[in-house]
């Protein structure tokens, strides 16, 4: 008997969505029958997922790109936010995050908020890898690509505990945001931000150097 699997691919680049489709189609056989839908933006994707739920035939798998154009009408600004929403609406759907990002902070954030069943870095991925990942998912296994596994290992080995705000501060600093401007991004006062930076410096074993040294160390330690 053949399995009928519903797949939703969300990516704003048609060429990518097409290539996923081609690869997945390649896996079809007598046992596996795939119903693949492609959506190029958050609004369409969101609508499709809601419909699928209404028809009581949720997607089995959802391929989610992180860099997606903002959907202002829905108040969803990126792929990660959409992922969180999908978890709410359609918890039975397995999420495959495919992203071009490779900054540890972003990856860590995705792990924490979406906790996808498969997490792949686009640059790591070859058609074979994608097939393997998909197979793992079909077999109810979790699949992380190489980069993610390394990141997780580093985090586990670390005995440094940074909370989300700390990571946010580090991330934005590394992006060239000034401490003064952090006030508008991180929900902390300027004094609190300075205090956190001082704490991180202590935790990282830095006795001197400014923000640059802090970011360098954070990068070494895999927080960025």
């Amino acid at each position, binding site marked *: 008997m053949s399995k009928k699997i519903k797949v939703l691919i969300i990516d704003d680049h048609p060429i990518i969505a*097409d290539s996923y489709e081609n690869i997945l189609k390649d896996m079809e056989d007598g046992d596996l029958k795939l119903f693949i839908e492609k959506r190029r933006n958050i609004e369409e994707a969101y609508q499709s997922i809601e419909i699928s739920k209404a028809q009581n035939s949720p997607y089995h798998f959802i391929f989610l790109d992180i860099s997606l154009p903002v959907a202002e009408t829905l108040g969803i600004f990126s792929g990660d936010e959409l992922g969180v929403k999908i978890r709410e609406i359609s918890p039975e759907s397995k999420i495959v995050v495919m992203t071009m990002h490779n900054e540890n902070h972003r990856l860590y954030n995705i792990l924490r908020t979406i906790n996808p069943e498969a997490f792949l870095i686009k640059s790591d991925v070859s*058609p074979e890898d994608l097939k393997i990942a998909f197979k793992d998912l079909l077999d109810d296994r979790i699949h992380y690509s190489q980069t993610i596994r390394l990141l997780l290992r580093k985090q586990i080995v670390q005995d440094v505990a940074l909370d989300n705000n700390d990571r946010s501060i580090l991330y934005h600093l590394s992006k060239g945001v000034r401490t003064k401007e952090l006030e508008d991004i991180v929900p902390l006062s300027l004094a609190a931000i300075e205090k956190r930076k001082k704490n991180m410096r202590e935790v990282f074993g830095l006795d001197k150097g400014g923000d640059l040294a802090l970011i360098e160390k954070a990068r070494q330690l895999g927080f960025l």
Partner: protein
Amino acid sequence: MENVNGKNEIFYNYLENKVSLSYFLETQSIEKINSIKNDSLKRSVIYKISYDYYLNKDSVNFRTWNRRIVRISHQQMDSAKIAEAFWDLASFYYEHDRIDSAYYYYSESEKLYSFLNKDLLQGKMLLNMAIMQTKVKDYIGGEVNTANALRLLKPLGKSNLLYSAYNNLGIIFNELEDYNKSLQYHKKALEYVKELEDPIKEANALNNIGVVYENQAQYSAAIKKFEEALTTGNLLEKNPRLYAMLLDNLGYTHFKNGNPQNSEELLLHSLRVRDSIHHTAGLVINNLHYAEYLSSTKDTVNAYIHANEALSLAKSSKSYGDILSALLLLSEIDAENGKSYLEEYIDLSDSLQKEERSIRNKFARIRFETDEFIEENENLTAERKWIIAGASGFFLIAILLYIIRDQKAKNKELQLQRVQQAANEEIYNLLLTSQDKVEQAKNEAKSRISAELHDGILSKFFGIRLSLEMLQDKEDPESKSKRKEFIKEMKAVENDIREVSHKLNSAKFESGVSFVQILHELWEEKQKLGNFKGELILGDDINWDEIANKVKIHVYRILQESLSNIIKYAQASNVFISFSIADKSLEMEVVDDGCGFDTEKSAKGIGLSNMQSRAKDLGGKLKVNSGEEGTKIELEIPLT
């Protein structure tokens, strides 16, 4: 030594009246006296010589020696001797009927004694002056000076002087026809005279009282006084003049009182006495009185003879008052020639009045000068006080003003510095914020390009790669055509990359942009405010990055000030600003077509001087040309 002693001895002998003037002058030649040292002894001797000549009535020698003593006393500032000499001179003039000169020297002497604080002598002089004034009928002046004399003399208790003073007052008020007052003073004089125990003077005082009574027409009272005076023992021998005067007055009063039977004998007796002592003035009055008496008895012939006698005597003695009386009487007696006598009377009376008036005027002038002298002295002291107070006050005020001005200037300078500093800070902030903006824009551009690379190009590449990998092993025609499509797709990505690269290249990130931006912002703002057209031209070859911030700040300020001035005053419709580099100098030119201003007048204006000082601070030059066609400001700053 002997010689000197000998000489001194004779001097002392002379001064002590042990030798006479003539003997003294026989032994001492004038040259000898003149040649000795000018000391108090010499002055005393010369004074005595002068005084002795005065006593001897040798007027020529007296005046010579008097002048001499005045001169040598002047040399030694011996005021006392000068005063004494003036006193003698005044007395001399008085005796020669030169009343005005006498008055002058009395007053000069009085001034000196006043200066020397010699109250007695000053009082004496005042009294003498008063008597002189009384003589010329300056009764008011006389009264004032007598009062002044009395003020000085009263505390000294000199009865003889007090007698004279009161006597004088009595005479004055008699002449003023204030007989009660006159009597009052004469009675006071009589009191003092009694203290003197001088019967002659007492008789004289009684006579004066009698005369006043007579003038009051209280004839019996007058007769009583005259008779009392005549009881003075041996009066005929002691003072025949007074005796004759009393007889005359008594007789005349009897006649007036309507008892002519007693008169004739008395008047004739008096005439005989006066004739025997050749008392001309007495004879004149006596003859007049007798003539009047004879006239009343209709003995016109004898009356005419006596009246005429009186007139000729009065004329010979130049006693003008008496001449007048004689003329008046004659006009009555000699009815035929009455008119000519009256005419003569009027002529003489007129000229006399004129004379008296002129003398009185002279007195007034002398008195006025004296008063003025005193007042001037007082004024001078007061003035000096005022000058000192004023000068020190002025000096203090000047110092205060100077301090205040100095502080003000310092304050102003500080304020100016503060203003300038604030202005400089403002520009720094402008530069900083503009740099911030640039930085922000830079960051934005960076993240935009990064996003473009990341989301666009990378994603496209990923899609192409993934697809190509998929198609790698497939040889079917469909796959082949797909591959071609992907390769075409890669070409599109190439174009994308080129575009991004071009964007990266075209974005200017030099910090110099910021100053240019500031200049443009300033220009646009001022242009809107001043409502003028024109252009801001920035030379392409200016590398603003290489120009020091200090220069930028000053240049910006000067431009700002220039534009503000144009807005405020020039009413220009076109303004051109140009920046250029020439000979390693930054040049700025601001030209407007406004109404211009007077550079000479406004040179001190704070705006222009500020601009100048900024230019100077940078070692540059600022030239301002202004005329009716507009203003041109040229700034040149060396860049080294």
